């Protein structure tokens, strides 16, 4: 293919928002990576958005501040945005493009890969059914995460999702599995304080060696946020499907990502859809979330826990809504539990892991898991109804049986759902604790567990 080599100088037409327009470029292609070089010599990466014989539109990461049409030059790189991938990136911290942020050397990558990856052939996928332990009872016991699943955390501003994210990053493991385990932590639009907190918490836990962090700071340009999770998934795919590792990717905060997408879209003058978000928000999110999974005949897996804050606590807002339409369930944090000082404030009732039923049981977690979680769920659902009733008629008016449920509810929230941010529970500990809770409700109500299970666990 014919291509003008080196720098392309003339014809820069205009700069607007994150976009640069130029004329007369030849031999370029859609999605191609560019370097935009300003008058000060600074090199900014970017991408071709509209490849046209006449006017070419470029999206410039790191913003267009300080660029003037007269002085700016553009280099076309003839390939998409590529980032380094290597096992040695574990234990390190990088920016959205894979440059070292921790003062260490740049990664010695054998390979560079396109950040957009490629869609897994659906017929090549293996159905996820193996347990991944987070050490958090409300997740492992009630909404079990399965390797290859994508299970988001729906939070809201002011709730301790950062603490929970850090805890999961520190504690996650695949019990009894020989293949290596790695965690990739993508931090999108975080303040330096929060980013530091994450790094320290991982360092102090001694888990750093298996964690790679990609950080996009709140004051980095919005369009860069669109890259951060993609860079993380590119490394994840390499580790999982080339190196056979089980990889957990935690991304926080997807709301920041979506807002960046909206900002960039409106700068391009696109017709907005709901709440100003572009009509392709669903497809764009799917291009990230669908990078979770397993592939037939390969050992590794990619599991995703994206974390998002629901604007105005509204679960029908496009960000949680479209996320829920793509992911395989959701973990919901609740303000009421947080106010009652329950950590993590996970409400297990609206939470659901859609892949749980196929991923638990004998040989995976434990044979009593399904029945136990079912029983806990229904007892807690009943408790919540009783609480509403008690609010109307007063607690004293409740029957003795219903009072037992109130007690169950309190203990379930403080002792089963509630745990220390440093407390790491094995699945056996979680399940045993669940049985402890069941001792608080009338034996006659334990209809979802079998006689044998009762005999074995309640004695």
């Amino acid at each position, binding site marked *: 293919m014919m291509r003008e080599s080196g720098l392309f100088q003339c014809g820069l037409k205009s700069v607007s928002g994150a976009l640069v327009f130029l004329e007369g470029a030849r031999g370029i292609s859609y999605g191609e990576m560019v370097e935009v070089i300003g008058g000060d010599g600074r090199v900014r990466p970017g991408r071709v958005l509209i490849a046209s014989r006449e006017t070419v539109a470029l999206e410039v990461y790191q913003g267009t501040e300080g660029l003037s049409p007269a002085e700016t030059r553009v280099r076309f790189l003839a390939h998409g945005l590529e980032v380094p991938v290597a096992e040695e990136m574990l234990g390190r911290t990088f920016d959205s493009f894979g440059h070292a942020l921790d003062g260490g050397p740049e990664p010695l990558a054998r390979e560079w890969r396109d950040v957009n990856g490629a869609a897994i052939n659906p017929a090549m996928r293996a159905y*996820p059914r193996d347990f991944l332990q987070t050490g958090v009872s409300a997740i492992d016991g009630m909404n079990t995460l399965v390797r290859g699943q994508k299970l988001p955390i729906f939070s809201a501003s002011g709730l301790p999702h950062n603490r929970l994210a850090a805890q999961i990053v520190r504690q996650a493991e695949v019990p009894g599995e020989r293949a290596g385990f790695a965690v990739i932590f993508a931090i999108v639009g975080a303040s330096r304080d929060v980013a530091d907190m994450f790094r320290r918490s991982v360092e102090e836990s001694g888990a750093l060696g298996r964690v790679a962090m990609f950080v996009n700071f709140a004051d980095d340009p919005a369009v860069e946020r669109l890259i951060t999770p993609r860079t993380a998934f590119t490394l994840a795919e390499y580790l999982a499907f080339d190196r056979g590792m089980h990889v957990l990717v935690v991304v926080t905060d997807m709301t920041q990502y979506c807002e960046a997408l909206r900002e960039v879209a409106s700068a391009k003058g696109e017709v907005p859809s709901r709440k100003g978000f572009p009509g392709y928000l669903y497809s764009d999110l799917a291009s990230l979330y669908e990078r979770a999974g397993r592939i037939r005949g390969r050992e590794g897996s990619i599991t995703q826990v994206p974390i998002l804050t629901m604007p105005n606590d509204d679960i029908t807002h496009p960000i949680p809504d479209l996320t829920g339409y793509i992911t395989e369930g959701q973990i919901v944090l609740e303000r009421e539990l947080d106010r009652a000082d329950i950590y993590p404030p996970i409400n297990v009732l609206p939470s659901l892991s859609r892949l749980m039923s196929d991923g638990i049981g004998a040989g995976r977690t434990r044979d009593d898991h399904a029945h136990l979680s079912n029983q806990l769920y229904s007892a807690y659902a009943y408790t919540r109804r009783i609480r509403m009733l008690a609010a109307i008629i007063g607690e004293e008016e409740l029957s003795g049986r219903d009072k037992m449920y109130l007690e169950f509810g309190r203990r379930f929230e403080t002792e089963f759902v509630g745990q220390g941010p440093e407390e790491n529970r094995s699945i056996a500990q979680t399940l045993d604790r669940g049985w402890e809770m069941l001792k608080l409700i009338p034996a006659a109500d334990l209809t979802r567990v079998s006689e044998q299970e009762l005999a074995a666990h309640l004695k």
Partner: protein
Amino acid sequence: MAGELSTSPGAREAQRKPVGRTVWVSGPVVKAEVEHSVFMGEQMEVGDERLIGEVIGVSGGQALLQVYEETEGLGPGRPVFSTGLPMFVTLGPGLVGSVFDGIQRPLHALEKAGPYISRGTKATPLDTEKRWHFVPRKRAGEKIGAGEVLGIVQETSVIEHRVLVPPEVSGELASVVPEGEYTVADVVATVRRHETGEEMSLTMAHRWPVKRPRPYHSHLRPEVPLITGQRIFDLFFPLAKGGTAAIPGGFGTGKTVTQHQLSKWAMADIIVFVGCGERGNEMAEVLLVFPELADPRTKRPLMEKTVLIGNTSNMPVAAREASIYTGITIAEYYRDMGYDVALMADSTSRWAEALREVSGRLEEMPAEEGFPAYLAARLAQFYERAGYVETLGGATGSVTVIGAVSPAGGDFSEPVTQHTKRFTRCFWALDKDLAAARYFPAINYLESYSGYLDEVGEWWHRKYDARWRALRDEAMRLLQEDSRLQRIVRLIGEDALPDEQRLIIEGSRLLQEACLQQNANDPVDTFCQPEKQLALLGAVLHFVKRAEEVVKKGAPIHRVREMAVREEIVRAKEKIPNDQLDRFKELTRRIDEEMDALYRDFRRVT
């Protein structure tokens, strides 16, 4: 056109010389300058990798193309090739059991290129090497008409593939091969056409443009229910063979589980499942389960009657749009053989969004919520392709269409749900609150409806029980009265109501627990025979009627609620298998016994 469509399905004969060059590329939309005329809807190949695309606009020397593969790496000045054909699918033996992407590339054949879908990978839709045992049904010299059976091929152990004379072809059979093994590329017959007198060769396969409905002889009244084995549908909101149904619902309300249930259990000969812009793991699940699970009628693996089309949410957006057309055309093809076909589209909203996305790139004037103004027309055209018909060959066949709708925020007032409602006759509304309470299937029975009640009623009465409609209406009345009472209960509490009203609430509760709820994962209740459905509903209503009598005599409600037999009724759906329906007689007897005992107690008192 039919002539070209009926030629060998192997190679795509895109011209070797380009007919133009690209000038503008943005996402799936490409503009090209073309030398000679291309036509609207023409299938094109773009760039050196020959990406598949379609003409969606022509003006002057410019053509607007929608490309069905990733366009990254494509730029101005690349060649564009014409095929001279509208977007088409290849129809012939080998479709059943296959998994295709939106533009009918067999996903298993793409595996050779690795686990990821790479651009420009070509694979013929049908295996051109595989030999099929062809048994001719016509002799040379016979007159043949469009849609008649030329011969048969055993496609899977349950599907006899009827090789049809393609639509628009008729004449005299000049030659036909003897029974034997042939590939889909081999000529099996030649026909001297009436209109032109020319000879035309036929293979076992032919092509058909996806946007053009396949012709049939006449439309029939849809009056045979499509039995699904799901009580909420068969008893309350029945679907007819050849009918249309919409399943709207917010995320996690059960659209996919419902469509999987229908694919597994519905009494259809062929299932076409279109995963349109949904999850890869769900396709993996289907591919894991369907080859293992036995069809309730034939006891053979489900995959032997299933065609899967998987264009997941991360695959190219434009191909999502194509996947729906690919699916419905394949469905019509098997209908034309005289089969009852059920097509599931999960989710039509993703298809509508693909329209919106492409429309947005074209900077068309948007109508509601950014959707193009032609959204309603496209939805109408799609659902219009459902139907119960007499085929050109004189058989009867049907295409039933069941479309999932994923409204933003679970709010049914959005355009896709609203338009779909106009073009479908069953509306199966999924309810967020019910799903959150893990009440499944989470069908809101007050908002849902079926337009086929009168039609299929006759069938039920003839085939099973003359009381079907009466039982159903009685149950619906109970549910409706209950919901009216619930409004009062919210204000004053249940205890404040008079006993006969509390009994309605009790009865409705029992009806829901014992009959309406049905767990897709329960080994017994996942599929419920029509006889069992009636028996179960009968038992519930019998209980309610008897309870009315004893409550009138003064028995307190809680005694009714605490009856041992009540629990038995609730468990019957999971405890009594489809082949032990005698046990319902026993259940009815116990209802009577316990009611009689209670009745005696209170008669003595009064």
